[in-house]
C-alpha cells in the first residue's frame, strides 16, 4: 500500500515542529484524507500517553540511567560528532608526524661547500667513543668518517689546553701508553678536525668530555 505524502508530516505537526505553511496544508489535507486523520489520532494518543506517563513507562531504564548522569565517556563522545572526532584524530596524527618525524630531520645543518668530488666542507664530524664516563680505557678513539683522503687531527684537552694531538687518515686512533696513564681519573675533552689533502680545514667536531675511572 502506498503511503500518503502527508503522513511524514504527522509527527512534526503533533510535536509543533511544522512551519505555518505546512501546518495549514496538513490541516486542510486531513479533512479530506480519512487515512491520514486516523493515523494522526492514533499517533496523538500515543504521544499524549508517553508525555503524561513517560516517567512511569520508562522509569526502570532510561529515566534511571539519566538520573545517574552520563558517564564521562558518554560526555566526551557526545562532545563532538563522529565526523568531527575523525577530523580531530587526523589532525592529531598530522601534528604528531610533523613534531616527531619532520622537524627533527629539518634541523639546520652547517653549510656545505664542495672542494672536489670526494670532499665536502662544512659537514660536522660526529664523535663516537669515548663520550661519557667509563671504567675501561677505550682501545681506540673513534669518529664518523667524512670521506676518502681526508686527514684528521685529534686533540685531547685538559682544561682547554692541548694535552696531546696526533694526525691520522683513519677514522680512529690508538692512544700511546704514556698518554693513557695521564688520562686516568680526571675529566678531559677531545675534538677532531678534518683537513683536505691540500691542508684546508673542512670540518670540526664539537668538544666532547670524557672521564676514565680505571681504579673502580
Amino acid at each position, binding site marked *: 500500500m502506498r503511503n500518503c505524502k502527508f503522513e511524514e508530516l504527522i509527527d512534526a505537526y503533533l510535536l509543533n515542529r511544522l512551519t505555518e505553511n505546512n501546518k495549514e496544508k496538513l*490541516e*486542510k489535507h*486531513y479533512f479530506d484524507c480519512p487515512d491520514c*486523520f486516523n493515523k494522526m489520532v492514533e499517533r496523538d494518543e*500515543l504521544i499524549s*500517553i*508517553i508525555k503524561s*506517563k513517560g516517567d512511569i513507562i*520508562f522509569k526502570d531504564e532510561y529515566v534511571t540511567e539519566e538520573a545517574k548522569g552520563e558517564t564521562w565517556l558518554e560526555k566526551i563522545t557526545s562532545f563532538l560528532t563522529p565526523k568531527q572526532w575523525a577530523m580531530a584524530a587526523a589532525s592529531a596524527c598530522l601534528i604528531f608526524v610533523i613534531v616527531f618525524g619532520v622537524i627533527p630531520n629539518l634541523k639546520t645543518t652547517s653549510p656545505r661547500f664542495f672542494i672536489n668530488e670526494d670532499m665536502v666542507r662544512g659537514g660536522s664530524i660526529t664523535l663516537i667513543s669515548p663520550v661519557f664516563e667509563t671504567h675501561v680505557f677505550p682501545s681506540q678513539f673513534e669518529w664518523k668518517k667524512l670521506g676518502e683522503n681526508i686527514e684528521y687531527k685529534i686533540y685531547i684537552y685538559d682544561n682547554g689546553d692541548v694535552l696531546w694531538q696526533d694526525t691520522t687518515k683513519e677514522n680512529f686512533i690508538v692512544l700511546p701508553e704514556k698518554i693513557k696513564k695521564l688520562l686516568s681519573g680526571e675529566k678531559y675533552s677531545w675534538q677532531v678536525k678534518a683537513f683536505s689533502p691540500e691542508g684546508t680545514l673542512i670540518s670540526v667536531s664539537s668538544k666532547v668530555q670524557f672521564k676514565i675511572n680505571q681504579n673502580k
Partner: protein
Amino acid sequence: MATMERTKEAINIEEICTKYRPIISFRVKKSLGASTPEWEDVVNEIITNVIEKLKKGEFRGESSIGTFIYTITSRRIIDYIRHKSKVLKHTPEPAHYPDPQEYIENKERAELMANAIKKLKPKYREVLYLYYYKDFSREEVAKKLSISPRRVSERVNYSQKLLKKLI
C-alpha cells in the same frame, strides 16, 4: 419528489456530520487546547454552521466537501481566538470538568497503552523515549542510536502497529 430530495439531503447532512465531527473536534482541540472548556461548544457551532450552509446550497462542489468544512472550521477558530483575546483577556479560565464516563475510559485506555509500551522490545522503547518523551528531533534520535532518520520513523510506525495488536 420534494420530500425525497429533502430526505436525501438530510441523510447526506447526517452522514457528513457523523464523518466530520471527530475531524472538526480534533482540529478545534489542537487549536484551542483540549483543556479549553468551550471547545465542544465551538465544535457544535461549526457543525451547525456547516449544516446551515449546506442547506442554503452554499456548497457548490467547487472544492471538496472536506475543504469546505475545513474553511468554516478555520474561520470559526480564528473568530473564537480573536473574541477570546479581546473580551476574556483578563478573565480567569473556568475549570474544565470532563464527562466522568469519558474520563474513566480514557484513563483505562491510557493504562493499557502504557503497559503495552512497557512490553515492547528495547529498540522500539528507546526510540519512543527519545523521540516523544525527550523531545529530540528525528535526526538527533538517529545520531544517538547510530541509525538513519528513516529507520527512526520506521521503528516508531512499527511500534504503533505492535501497540495496536497488544491492546
